């Protein structure tokens, strides 16, 4: 490569290279700005159109009839709460125990197989999971909040298991060794030392999974969608949910329904974003804590 004269003007070739470089840097910056602007427009739309319809009634009253003003979506909020809470109760123990098995007991081959299964499960479209639960639970019985919870639990399972596994991996090896050196049995070590050290991380993973599940619509279409327009808390009945309500209202011709859909979207987004921000903060904290132990 011929060097440009140190004191002279840069050669045309160098100038061209610099121009190309500048252009590419500008393109990359613009791309990042596009992403931020997209998020911005979505959130601004939701805020601007959703805020006016938000009121106390919106959260506490059952829906008004078609075309009628007023009313709220209390049935959807109650239903989502129940469905997601039950789903978390199903997925959390299974996910955590799976991760414990993978990190503490599993032979390498089996560990890889189960990890692959978790990744595959994570990649299965949620609508297919809805069809699956429809086939095993709904066809033989009927739609119910429980069926919806089961579908969401399948979606949460790989998220919780994988994130717990990641946390268990960063539990310092010295803790395990110290425990074994004291002659403490394996189950006591896991339950008394390793699990408590990773509780923060497990909570993070669970919260992310809850945030994801709370926004899922497709698994509920076939499992908990034929609902009554009043508030029920009984998971044996089909329960309305927030995402499904948004889906149904968005296809309605009534502008009042659109306003309700925006308001419900605002509530859902607020919940999801808060949960992800909170889990991010929690994660940073538990990382720091574990780092201090090591």
């Amino acid at each position, binding site marked *: 490569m011929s060097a440009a004269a140190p004191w002279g003007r840069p050669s045309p070739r160098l100038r061209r290279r610099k121009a190309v470089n500048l252009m590419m840097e500008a393109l990359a910056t613009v*791309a990042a700005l596009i992403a931020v602007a997209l998020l911005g427009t979505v959130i601004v739309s939701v805020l601007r159109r959703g805020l006016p319809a938000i009121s106390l009634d919106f959260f506490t009253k059952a829906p008004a009839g078609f075309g009628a003003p007023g009313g709220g979506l209390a049935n959807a909020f109650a239903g989502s709460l129940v469905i997601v809470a039950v789903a978390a109760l199903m997925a959390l123990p299974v996910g955590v125990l799976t991760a414990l098995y993978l990190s503490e007991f599993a032979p390498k081959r089996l560990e890889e197989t189960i990890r692959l299964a978790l990744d595959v499960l994570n990649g299965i479209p949620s609508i297919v999971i809805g069809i699956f639960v429809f086939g095993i639970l709904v066809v033989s019985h009927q739609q119910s909040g429980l069926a919806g919870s089961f579908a969401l639990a399948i979606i949460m399972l790989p998220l919780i298991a994988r994130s717990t596994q990641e946390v268990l991996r960063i539990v310092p090896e010295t803790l395990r060794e110290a425990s074994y050196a004291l002659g403490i049995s394996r189950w006591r070590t896991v339950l008394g030392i390793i699990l408590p050290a990773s509780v923060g991380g497990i909570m993070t993973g669970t919260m992310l999974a809850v945030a994801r599940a709370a926004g899922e619509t497709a698994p509920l279409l076939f499992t908990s969608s034929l609902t009554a327009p009043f508030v029920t808390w009984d998971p044996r009945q089909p329960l309305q949910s927030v995402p499904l309500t948004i889906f149904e209202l968005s296809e309605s011709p009534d502008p009042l329904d659109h306003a309700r859909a925006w308001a419900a979207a605002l509530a859902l987004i607020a919940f999801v974003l808060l949960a992800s921000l909170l889990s991010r903060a929690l994660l940073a904290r538990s990382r720091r804590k574990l780092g201090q132990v090591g």
Partner: protein
Amino acid sequence: MSAAPSALPVRAPRSAGDRIADVLFHGLTLVPALAALALVVAIGWKVADGSRLAFHKFGLGFVTTAAWDPVKGVFGARDFILGTASTSLIALVLATPIAIAIGLYLSELAPRGVRDVIGALVELLAAIPSVVVGLWGILVLGPFLAQHLDPVLRSALGWTPFFKGDIPSAGTGMLTAAVVLTIMVVPIVASISRELFQSVPRELEEGALALGLTRWEMVRGVVLPSARPGIAAAVILGLGRAVGEAIAVTQVIGGFAGFSLSLFKPGDTLASRIASQYQGASTALQVSALVYLAAILLAISLVVNLLAQVIVRRFEFQRTGGS
């Protein structure tokens, strides 16, 4: 690498109770661990089982038949497969360069503070529920496209079959679906490629810069080549997301059994057809045909995911085994 307590010289616990408890505990964790495996198998089996009726009636020809007539009881998947393929591919073509550019900006250009903020925002974009993206797509994006972008596309590219015909007044159609999918794919590919770029060894990058390369030349010569397989895997994962997205697509694609080359026309994907017919399915055959669509969708997503896994594994092997 991974924790392997069994490799430690652990002496068996003295008390018999502890020994029994260890075995029990092992079993207690083993059973749930097998649940994931069992679920994957059960999902495959149930979907195959549910589509049996349609499979017996239409066989493999279902895949290439263009029909969806519940009254006559004739069903086929061709239009929906084409719909899935075209919307997902357009989304990938649009999303990949943007996402890689975002990844590059975050890993190579952005000042530290900006990087964390924008990185978090990109991940928040991924966290927005698809039904909300769909709501925004049908009420904001669709009308916007119909008024501003579509006329431009038609006057510039109207001579191709892709931008022919009337612009949908509400803005629902294949193009809107593809744009919505793009928005959902970008954050996935961007955050993975950012991590890939950041994991390129610092010395290589600094060495290239020290040789007098500009930053772009360094990226093209060092960063991109070493991250290429990872990017491929990220794009494939994005494809999996686009193929499987049901709700947002249903909201904006217009729901129409019939495939047209024109992106202004309504259509349907595999996932959106399943989602939009959930309450209308009246006959057992129609339900079975819907499950058949789900089986095709499942097969596609399995292939896509396993492909991504294979690439990632080989990539990791190269990295750890190569140095």
